[in-house]
């Protein structure tokens, strides 16, 4: 237990926290774009699953990590487009459309994985992204090894936070997204194309979710596993509420949950009396508790869940 007091332990723990938080940051930013425009995207879990698969299978077949990341994001973008068709053009129930996409995308993932890979006893592996030390920055004590010795996807996630915040709150495009999510009639009246903005938001969201999924197979692990996303998509939906639909807070929320995950990973095996499943369920239990606390002050975009039909 004395290892808890040493600096290397804490650096290792914090670096793991940032790593585990990466897919949560990406997916939650994606969901934030979607919900800010007025659409709850419950397709998130399935889109992440398909992204994990698309990234893996591309790299497995071509050995090209960048192509894997690109196709994973592209697959997410296409699912986002599909979600937009269902909920924006057709104005279907957002809950059921999203669940439909999750069931469909997950089914498709397993279907093609089994068709291409079969069911070997040991799942095949790829060579994943490795951590890149950023010159100079990685030499800063504590912060260096924690933040600046990560994989490229983590760097992208870290940069995506301020970019998303800037896009949503400092640009006309962001103003349009927020206005179609708050009051589509008024936005339409001043010349904002509600359908177009929602389509674009859902496609950005999908691409981020697809990339988030790819992190699991191309950086966190080096293989595809069934249920590899393991409910992280649903955690992201909760994190959006926790973060009050603000990207900067998404970052802190994701770190908090990454931390809990990382604690669980580190505590497993240190105690015989507590089954390891307790640590595994901790993030889910805590997400529920945080939801309860944040429910009171949560102010969702006013037009969330409401289809817009131009008369």
């Amino acid at each position, binding site marked *: 237990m004395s290892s808890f007091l040493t600096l290397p332990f804490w650096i290792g723990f914090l670096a793991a926290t940032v790593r585990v938080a990466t897919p949560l940051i990406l997916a939650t930013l994606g969901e934030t774009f979607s919900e800010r425009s007025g659409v709850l995207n419950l397709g998130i879990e399935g889109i992440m699953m398909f992204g994990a698969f698309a990234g893996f299978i591309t790299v497995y077949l071509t050995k090209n990590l960048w192509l894997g990341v690109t196709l994973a994001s592209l697959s997410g973008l296409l699912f986002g487009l599909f979600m937009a068709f269902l909920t924006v053009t057709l104005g279907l129930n957002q809950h059921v459309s999203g669940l439909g996409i999750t069931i469909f995308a997950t089914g498709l993932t397993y279907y093609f994985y089994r068709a291409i890979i079969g069911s070997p006893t040991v799942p095949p592996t790829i060579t994943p992204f490795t951590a890149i030390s950023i010159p100079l920055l990685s030499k800063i004590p504590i912060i260096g090894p924690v933040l600046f010795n990560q994989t490229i996807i983590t760097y992208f996630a870290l940069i995506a936070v301020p970019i998303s915040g800037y896009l949503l709150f400092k640009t006309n495009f962001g103003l349009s997204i927020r206005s179609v999510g708050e009051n589509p009639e008024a936005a339409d009246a001043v010349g904002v194309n509600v359908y177009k903005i929602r389509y674009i938001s859902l496609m950005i969201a999908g691409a981020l979710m697809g990339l988030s999924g790819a992190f699991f197979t191309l950086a966190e692990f080096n293989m595809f596993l069934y249920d590899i996303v393991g*409910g992280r998509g649903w955690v992201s939906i909760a994190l959006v509420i926790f973060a009050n639909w603000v990207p900067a807070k998404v970052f802190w929320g994701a770190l908090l949950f990454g931390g809990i995950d990382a604690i669980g990973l580190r505590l497993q095996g240190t105690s015989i009396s507590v089954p390891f499943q307790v640590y595994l*369920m901790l993030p889910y239990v805590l997400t529920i508790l945080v939801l309860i606390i944040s429910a009171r002050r949560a102010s969702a975009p006013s037009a969330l869940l409401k289809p817009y039909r131009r008369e």
Partner: protein
Amino acid sequence: MGLISVKLEKRNTPPVWFQIFAPFIAILISLAISSIFLLILKKNPFTAFYYMFVGAVGSKFALLEMLVKASPLILTGIAVAFAFTAKYWNIGAEGQLYAGALAATWFGLMKLPFSPVVYVLVIIVAGIVAGAIWSFIPGYLKAKLKVDDVVTTLLMNYVMIYIVSALLNGPWRDPVTMYPSSPSIAPNAYFPKLIPQSRLHLGIIISLLAVAFMWFIIKKTKLGFEIRATGASSRASNFLGINTVKSIIIVSIISGGIAGLAGVGEVAGVQYHLIQTISPGYGYSGIVIAMLGRLNPIGILLAAIYFAMVITGANVMSYNLHIPIYISDVIQGITLIVMLMMLLLFEYRIKIGRGK
């Protein structure tokens, strides 16, 4: 934007024949779309669906196996439909099923000196109560504290599955095989077989009772009216003096209890012990079934039988044609989306024309 413009025009309620046939049309369309994924693997869709159909109803054995699968699906479908009728988004039937299975196993392992009738009743009640409690938590949070129901019910699935995993890898681990499965429950807690030398058990009768129960509650009681009103418009319901907080809590309890029953049936009727894979996603299939059945008890019964055919048949199809078994999940996802699109035709006429 775009080349095609889709216009929706409000319409009156469509003719009854259309309402009845809509799910069948949705099934045909979704099978046609699923064929694309069979063709990608260079499989003949007609051969595939033939094997699927024969695998589900081609023999007495297949038919009975299909009904064994149908009973949990009817229950999860009814469970979800109860909740969705009140627009309470219970996506947690999977976890509630596991809660029911856990309770049934717990009482079943006690080897109590009861007669079979009493013991079966005991584990049924235990399963209902466990599922209801697991569902009451998010229901209460939603109704009283406005905590998002979708997320809590979904996350609680994972929590329950880890609880079961902890039990199966810990105190309940089979001491003989050391395999993560519980020892067998007491034989006098087994569900009786309906047909000798088959696996068809009491569960299917319980499922049919659940269908009747839902029909009675929703259509014939004041509670059912309140549940429907809550789903139609919670503001109007409050105006009518309906306590929507109470309706949602009650609906969450009923929904969870019925999902818990599905878990009891799988333990006491099929496996006789608890395993991690006691449900291959029956709780999630319940969502598809509830929607395809249009939240109507008879519709759900038929939809559950259809998906029992798909799941059972997919096994046979997979075995004979080497098509991944997961085609049944693909079909479920597509059917849900197609059915949702069909429902749009209930409210609107769709005019497709050239874009501006």
